[in-house]
């Protein structure tokens, strides 16, 4: 763990920080302190982020040239499956809620801890067990179904499907427990004076996320149970030869997994609301609009799963309704984007590293959202379905949205979590590489996709020379972008680790934030606050700070 940081003394007072209050490995692994649990989640998430990222680099090396010369077709299938499964289940879903959220949510509410600290620890242990199952699946034959486990392939392939579905099943409960804990904490643990409309918008977005986690994840659990039974006992419900229906699996799976994409993006939207205000010294434009649109996204998000099945033999009338509802979910998303842009208007924008990522989010996530409308339109989806356009679209939302927001939030709260400042110069250098690398990688895939290049093929050498050359041109550009992106990510890793050892000490409030987490020491003391904090103003009342010449 962060051994170097454990020696840091708190910035103020004599009470030791949460990092040095108790010592030893056991004091971490069996802690009930939400801050330590958040840090352990953070370490785990970053570790798997690196693994998932390296798998992606493997995919990009293969696709840079048309022949399947780097890995075999089977290995390629395993590469993209594991990249997807690790990134979705082990990285993006827990990234913001379980690591940053666990750390920041009680601080922002002015609480000493989450409502159920032991359940919080259990959720981390369950996460580790689930991750071990997924890792076991990798070493015991891999997984080649794609992260979606579509039947009938997932019931007939030789790879370790049951180990992987068991892992995902277990991880689901980790996610449910975090969500349950957050909802109760938000309802019952708010500090005196913290009304619902004085809560930071990050809390609102975590609330909406938690609602989805509780309502959708159990359905994934039962879906994976049915799939496991299908594979193990051959119960036949998804097997057409036994009278079952493979498309039924898709309905089940996407009933969870479409809301799950909002589990991945909503916390990111919350982070952005914190950043565009704090780093532009402006109150948020449309507090209620942003807060309620989070809840609206959570609810409408349950009604759009059918847009994954426009070409799966779903009835036309169902497709038309799902298409309409898909446009509907874009409305609250757009409300948020416009509100953030309006917040920036005439603000004192400081281009700090977290703010740069927040601005990148606005740009990249908007591209991801608008290209989603192409896919939600019935006629264009027939052309674009299962092409690289889809890959580029969901990477713009999941990575350009979810993970960029995670990195933004990590930089924003890093001084609070560790008590150290990282190098702004290296932060900006890495940002340029990440932003340029990402944009090049996935812009190229948009072009390849609109030209009809299907996803999930490991070799495209046997096409007509014209198509082959066209695809190879864009795929090689995409690979170069991915390498640049990878370099940027490693620079982030290095300067963050460096900051733990050599970084300057941070004061309690390096960004001049107004929400409660900035009113305690960096890093916070074990019980978060001296005495009981009282919330006297909204989270974004910046006027007085500007007068002090911040």
């Amino acid at each position, binding site marked *: 763990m962060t051994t170097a940081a454990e020696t840091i003394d708190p910035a103020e007072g004599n009470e030791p920080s949460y990092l040095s209050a108790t010592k030893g490995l056991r004091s971490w692994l069996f802690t009930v302190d939400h801050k330590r649990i958040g840090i352990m989640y953070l370490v785990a998430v970053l570790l798997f982020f690196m693994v998932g990222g390296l798998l992606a680099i493997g995919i990009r090396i293969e696709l840079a040239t048309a022949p399947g010369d780097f890995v075999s077709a089977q290995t390629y299938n395993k590469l993209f499956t594991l990249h997807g499964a690790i990134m979705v289940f082990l990285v993006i879903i827990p990234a913001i809620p379980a690591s940053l959220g666990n750390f920041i949510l009680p601080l922002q509410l002015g609480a000493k801890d989450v409502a159920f600290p032991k359940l919080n620890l259990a959720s981390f242990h369950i996460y580790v067990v689930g991750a071990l199952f997924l890792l076991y699946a990798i070493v015991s034959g891999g997984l080649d179904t794609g992260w979606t486990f579509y039947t009938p392939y997932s019931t007939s392939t030789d790879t370790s499907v049951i180990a992987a579905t068991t892992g995902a099943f277990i991880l689901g409960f980790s996610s449910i427990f975090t969500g349950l804990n957050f909802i*109760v904490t938000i309802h019952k643990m708010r500090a005196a004076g913290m009304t619902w409309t004085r809560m930071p918008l990050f809390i609102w977005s975590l609330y909406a996320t938690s609602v989805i986690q509780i309502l959708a994840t159990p*359905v994934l659990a039962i879906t994976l149970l049915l799939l496991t039974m299908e594979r193990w006992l051959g119960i*036949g419900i998804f097997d057409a030869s036994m009278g079952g229906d493979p498309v039924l699996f898709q309905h*089940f799976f996407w009933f969870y997994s479409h809301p799950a994409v909002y589990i991945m993006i909503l916390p990111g939207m919350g982070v952005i609301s914190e950043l565009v205000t704090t780093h532009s010294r402006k109150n948020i434009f449309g507090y209620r609009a942003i807060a309620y649109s989070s809840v609206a996204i959570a609810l409408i998000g349950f009604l759009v799963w059918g847009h994954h099945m426009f070409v799966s033999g779903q009835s036309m009338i169902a497709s038309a309704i799902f298409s309409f509802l898909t446009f509907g979910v874009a409305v609250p998303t757009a409300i948020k984007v416009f509100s953030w842009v309006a917040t920036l208007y005439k603000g004192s924008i400081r281009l700090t590293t977290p703010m740069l990522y927040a601005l990148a989010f606005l740009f990249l996530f908007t591209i991801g959202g608008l290209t989603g409308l192409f896919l939600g339109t019935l006629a264009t989806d027939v052309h674009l379905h299962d092409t690289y356009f889809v890959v580029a679209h969901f990477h713009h939302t999941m990575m350009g949205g979810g993970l960029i927001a995670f990195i933004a939030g990590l930089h924003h709260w890093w001084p609070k979590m560790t008590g150290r400042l990282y190098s702004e110069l290296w932060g900006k250098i890495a940002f340029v590489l990440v932003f340029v690398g990402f944009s090049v990688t996935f812009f190229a895939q948009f072009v390849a996709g609109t030209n009809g290049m299907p996803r999930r093929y490991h070799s495209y050498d046997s096409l007509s020379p014209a198509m082959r050359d066209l695809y190879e041109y864009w795929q090689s550009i995409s690979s170069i972008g991915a390498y640049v992106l990878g370099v940027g990510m490693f620079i982030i890793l290095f300067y963050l680790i460096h900051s733990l050892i050599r970084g300057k000490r941070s004061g309690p409030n390096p960004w001049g934030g107004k929400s409660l987490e900035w009113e305690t020491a960096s890093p916070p003391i074990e019980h978060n606050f001296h005495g009981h904090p009282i919330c006297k103003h909204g989270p974004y009342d910046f006027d007085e700070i500007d007068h002090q010449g911040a």
Partner: protein
Amino acid sequence: MSEPVENSVTGHRFLQHHFFTARQQYDSAKLGMWLFCVQEILFFSGLFMAYAAVRFFYPETMLAAHEFLSVPMGAINTVVLLTSSLTMALAVRSAQLNLQKNLKFHLVITILLACVFLVIKYFEYTHKIHAGMLPGKYYAGEGLAGSPWIFFGLYFLMTGVHGIHVIGGIVVMVWLLIRARRGDFGAEYYTPVENVGLYWHVVDVIWIFLFPLLYLVK
């Protein structure tokens, strides 16, 4: 949330450090349990949707296959579970009124009724297994047209997952009984009894839906 009050005013010995008052801790635990129950309902809703889809595909097979389930046994089990819900509710009431003997008595009866439910279920399962009325590729029954193995797959899965919840209920009720014997519960503090009660009622309600859907197909 109410204004912070010092622990000593309204606290009890199970008050955790991060709560201000016993009331806040009680409310939190109860809200948490309700959310857990919501999660349980959604978990089973997946199975109910699978049932709805299969019944929509094969109504005749469903009608014919359900004849092999024993309505009397299912009905007895329904009565057993409903009675256990009553005794569970009485256990909660006993804890609230600080009636220690009644609390332990009602918990024991609830546990026994849960065991009776499982024993009856065991006889039902053995009968199905002997008749070859098994899920999917293990199906060896005769005299049913269509794909009855899907019905039996769902039957075993739905009642099996429910049965696991009954076993889970027995485990937590035994834990309650141990704590009750230690004298942990009373009018001051009965949150765990009430929350296990909530869980038990959910398990009961799910059975109330399973019974007509599986045993009383029309």
